[in-house]
């Protein structure tokens, strides 16, 4: 299978976000990283209630308001205007990161430049040029009971993003528990990538070739499926 064929089988970002959303249980507390991870909120299965946390001091915020209705003192960590759901709460930054670091979040969902089989994550900086900026990324990878990464399986020029050891500067060590890529769902178990789902039509050997570390099988590997989705951000 060529790289072109591999590309043809991939899920869109919206579909990756949709797939991750299916694994967020009812009644959980979730932090979505800035940007791509914010898309996960759109695809919550009906009937499930998730309470979203934002680092800048809100629990249980909802959809953005209509344009022109923004209250710029009511924003999320991505600096986008949000609304409140009934039962929301405000708190200061130290209490907010007590929630993060103290293990009170059920799930954090983050993007990645690289994920290592050890669970190491690199998602804040590619090189040493420009202005470095870390925000809350290094805090979020610690404390949440599960840390999910959503990402393309390979870089734009076809290099693996799932690797043995990250070459980019680390965000955290041994922190990622599950990775949702454009082609597979992979758990990190005791320093190994364990394949759980892959795209129908994709050969294991092809997926392995596009992955920078050994993929293990430990139980059934099922089809990675997602509905067709219109994604305004993708």
């Amino acid at each position: 299978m060529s790289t072109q064929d591999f590309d043809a089988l991939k899920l869109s970002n919206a579909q990756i976000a949709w797939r991750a959303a299916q694994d967020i249980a009812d009644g959980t507390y979730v932090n979505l990283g800035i940007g791509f991870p914010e898309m996960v909120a759109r695809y919550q299965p009906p009937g499930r209630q998730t309470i979203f946390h934002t680092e800048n001091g809100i629990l249980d915020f909802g959809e953005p308001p209509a344009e022109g209705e923004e209250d710029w003192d009511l924003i999320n960590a991505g600096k986008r205007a949000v609304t409140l759901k009934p039962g929301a709460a405000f708190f200061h930054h130290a209490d907010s990161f007590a929630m993060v670091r103290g293990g009170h979040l059920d799930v954090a969902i983050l993007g990645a430049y690289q994920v290592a089989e050890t669970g190491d994550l690199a998602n804040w900086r590619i090189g040493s040029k420009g202005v470095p900026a870390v925000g809350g990324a290094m805090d979020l990878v610690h404390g949440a009971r599960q840390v999910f990464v959503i990402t393309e399986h390979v870089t734009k020029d076809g290099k693996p993003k799932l690797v043995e050891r990250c070459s980019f500067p680390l965000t955290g060590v041994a922190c990622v528990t599950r990775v949702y890529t454009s082609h597979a769902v992979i758990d990190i178990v005791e320093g190994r990538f364990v394949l759980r789902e892959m795209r129908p039509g994709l050969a294991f050997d092809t997926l392995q070739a596009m992955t920078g570390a050994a993929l293990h099988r430990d139980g059934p590997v099922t089809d990675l499926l997602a509905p067709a989705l219109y994604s305004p951000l993708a």
Partner: protein
Amino acid sequence: MDKQVASAAEAVAGIGDGATVMIGGFGGSGAPIELIHALIDKGPKGLTVINNNAGNGRIGIAAMIDAGLVKKMICSFPRSSDPRAFTDRYLAGEIELELVPQGTLAERIRAGGAGIPAFYTPTGFGTELAEGKVIAEFDGRSYVQERWLKADFALIKAHLGDRHGNLTYNKAARNFNPLMCTAAETTIVQVSEIVPLGGIDPEHVVTPGIFVDRVVEIADPAQEEVLIRAGAVYA
């Protein structure tokens, strides 16, 4: 998401032998008397209890001690107006005591809830309560390293609550309660009234629901100081 439970008995389900239990309150204010008494009815043994004091009179934590539930107290001030229950067992060597300065106790609980495994404080440096602890110097001053404190369960008294567990407190009955909410694996709260979601202004929430697991409404809850002054006994 609904954290409401129907009764104090249901609220304390799962607290078994050997558990570590934080209990809110300071002196006669903020003690979750109904939850404590429901726990006495359940009767687990060998508990480690974390509270500022060590029980007063014959109700609340004192009644837990009387009923033989408590193996160890972690507290700052095990003497109070009527500390017989603790004093008698302590002097008989039947109950352990870990004495912690009050501010250090509060900060250790806050650290447990905030994911801070250890911190340095000036409190206790050079005293017998710092014996055996790590000492470090910062900017020419000596400090004591203290570890976080966590619990399996917290029993909390709040004022208003909603079904997500957002809470407010009544006056100085706040004390250790909001801290303990954050530091237990399972946080169990009695409130005087359960209000609808949104019934607490988001600006006025003291404990956000993320820290709370179970909420039970106990209208007109007992006030510890009032019970003690009335000579109440729970047995």
